């Protein structure tokens, strides 16, 4: 779900309650059921400045997405953070930075908080965005480092690396690698270092086809300079022994 969709869900949940005591009860229950933060995460660094009650907010990144955990000595504050976490958890830093959340005003939360608590809420939102900005910078830095590495190899070099890698993948039935066997019809390294491979199997009914394609994918992905791999399996034209290299034929005693 997008940030906007989760917000909409929360707004609808709050429509059920017609008075603020019930809304508070709901927020309190959210606060009570929130997963407990590890004591080790309750550091001075994670403490949010400007909150009347003490609030700790921790953030970790996994596969380019951010996950938050938090705690507070005030249960209403904790409930409010749990709403914020629900909205932001699992989104990319970019999505979080670009988001402008509305639910706090729509459900009337901001206007129903005391001014000191409303300031605390602003501080929490600010902290979440600060985390997102920090992780965004980190991710960008890693990406540009990768890009630099890729550019170390020319397209021709990557082509060679791919072929070397293909020569490490063996047909499960014939003790010859897929390249010398002539299963690879085309290797095309694109400008962005994505590799397009067109290949076939010795027979359209080959029971190991999936394994072979997967092995090829893994080997090529790991080849230096390769960014992505796209494999097309074809039986047009059909494979025959004439496609084998001389080495392969020698190996199999066909020469």
């Amino acid at each position: 779900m997008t940030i906007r969709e989760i917000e909409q869900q929360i707004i609808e949940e709050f429509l059920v309650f017609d008075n603020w005591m019930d809304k508070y009860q709901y927020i309190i229950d959210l606060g009570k059921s929130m997963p407990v933060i590890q004591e080790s995460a309750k550091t001075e660094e994670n403490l949010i400045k400007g909150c009347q009650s003490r609030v700790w907010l921790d953030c970790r990144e996994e596969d380019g997405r951010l996950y938050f955990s938090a705690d507070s000595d005030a249960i209403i504050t904790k409930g409010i953070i749990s709403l914020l976490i629900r909205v932001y958890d699992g989104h990319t830093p970019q999505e979080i930075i670009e988001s402008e959340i509305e639910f706090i005003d729509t459900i009337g939360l901001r206007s129903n908080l005391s001014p000191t608590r409303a300031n605390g809420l602003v501080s929490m939102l600010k902290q979440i965005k600060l985390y997102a900005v920090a992780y965004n910078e980190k991710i960008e830095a890693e990406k540009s480092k990768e890009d630099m590495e890729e550019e170390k190899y020319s397209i021709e070099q990557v082509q060679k690396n791919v072929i070397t890698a293909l020569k490490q993948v063996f047909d499960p039935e014939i003790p010859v690698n897929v390249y010398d066997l002539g299963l690879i019809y085309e290797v095309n390294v694109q400008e962005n270092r994505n590799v397009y491979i067109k290949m076939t199997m010795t027979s359209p009914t080959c029971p190991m086809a999936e394994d072979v394609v997967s092995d090829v994918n893994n080997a090529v992905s790991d080849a230096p300079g390769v960014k992505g791999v796209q494999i097309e399996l074809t039986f047009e034209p059909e494979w025959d022994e004439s496609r084998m290299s001389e080495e392969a034929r020698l190996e199999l005693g066909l020469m």
Partner: protein
Amino acid sequence: MLISYTAMSGTSNNIIARTRKMVPALGLTMNGQKLVYLDNAATTQKPKQVLDFIQKALTENNANVHRSMYELSDRATTAYEAARKKVCEFINAPSVENIIFTSGTTASINLVADTFCRSLSFGDEILIEADSHHSNIVPWQLAAQRVGAIVKVIPTDIFCGRGKSGKLVVEALQELLTNKVKILALTHISNITGLHNPVKEIISAAHAKKIPVLVDGAQGIVHSEVDVQAMDCDFYAFSAHKIYGATGVGVLYGKKELLEQLPPYMGGGDMVETVSYEKTTYAPLPLKFEAGTPNFIGAASLTPALEFAEYLSSGSVGEALKAEEQKITQYMLDILLKDNDVELYGTPDAQNMGKSPIFTFNIKGINAGDLAQLLDKMGIAVRSGMMCAEPLLNSFGATSALRASFAPYNTMEEAEYFVSCLNRARKMLV
């Protein structure tokens, strides 16, 4: 301008109801509920007499004071000086010269701390109380820093392991009142514990060693009858807004000989006699300490404000309200003390020990801010946080607390409503 209150008769409930009607804010609704205002230690609600007075003063008597020859300015000056006279009578000061208008308790204390401590030397001591609020701690620290003086603290029982009531340990004075002590800053009634300190006893101990004493009367002016001559304090400080007057106005009472010795605090405006570029002579008391245009409208509102305070404490009204207040205090103490999960800060250790209806406490495992927020939704205004007395609150092992503080216009019914709402909020939060 004098506002006369007609003597009231009737049942105690009638008296209370009629008194409440005089304070329009008490009829407000908050979050759809009738307002129950229990943050009187922070500020009090204003009677209609004060509101009307301010409106009239701004409409009909507004001109700068002490400056001009025209009728309008005369009216403003007369109202301003009438309020000084009223304050003088209210605290039984010898003369209007002893009454200085400031911007509040904090400003009054800063004035004394700053000017008095200029003559202190390195190593001199300033004695303050552990149960003081920040306004009676920080000005002394600032003044001490400038001259290299030392601030020492009269402890409460908690600080010396003699109990946990929050009561001041007067016995500690024997040791603390050394020759090095140059001034003593007392708190009449603590804004956290509501406990009445034995100021008279402490003052006479200090005077025996020729040490002048300032008394912070921020709460004392509301909850006790102040007679500065009987108390024999050298300075007494309070704010108008805590005793039904306007905000931004305070009073500093000072003994004449001391005020005369002190250098001026701020310069400018009406605090001078003659000014040349080389030398200035200062106006006589009390104007010497009233630099710039004073808050003359706010200060003048002390006349109706103190009249209202007198009305609340005298005659049949006084009796009815006093009885109600005692009922409330007893009820609140019973409820809070019998509850094992409640930690009350400031328990009177004896029946006859003075405690004003200020109740600061925590409920185990519950955040005071959460309670205050839910109580607000039920129409109740109470304070949560540090109450500007962080060191004292910390001594109780608390980082924040809830405070319900009552004024004479609060009722037993409100106390009971507060307790039932507190229980409801507590159930929600546990």
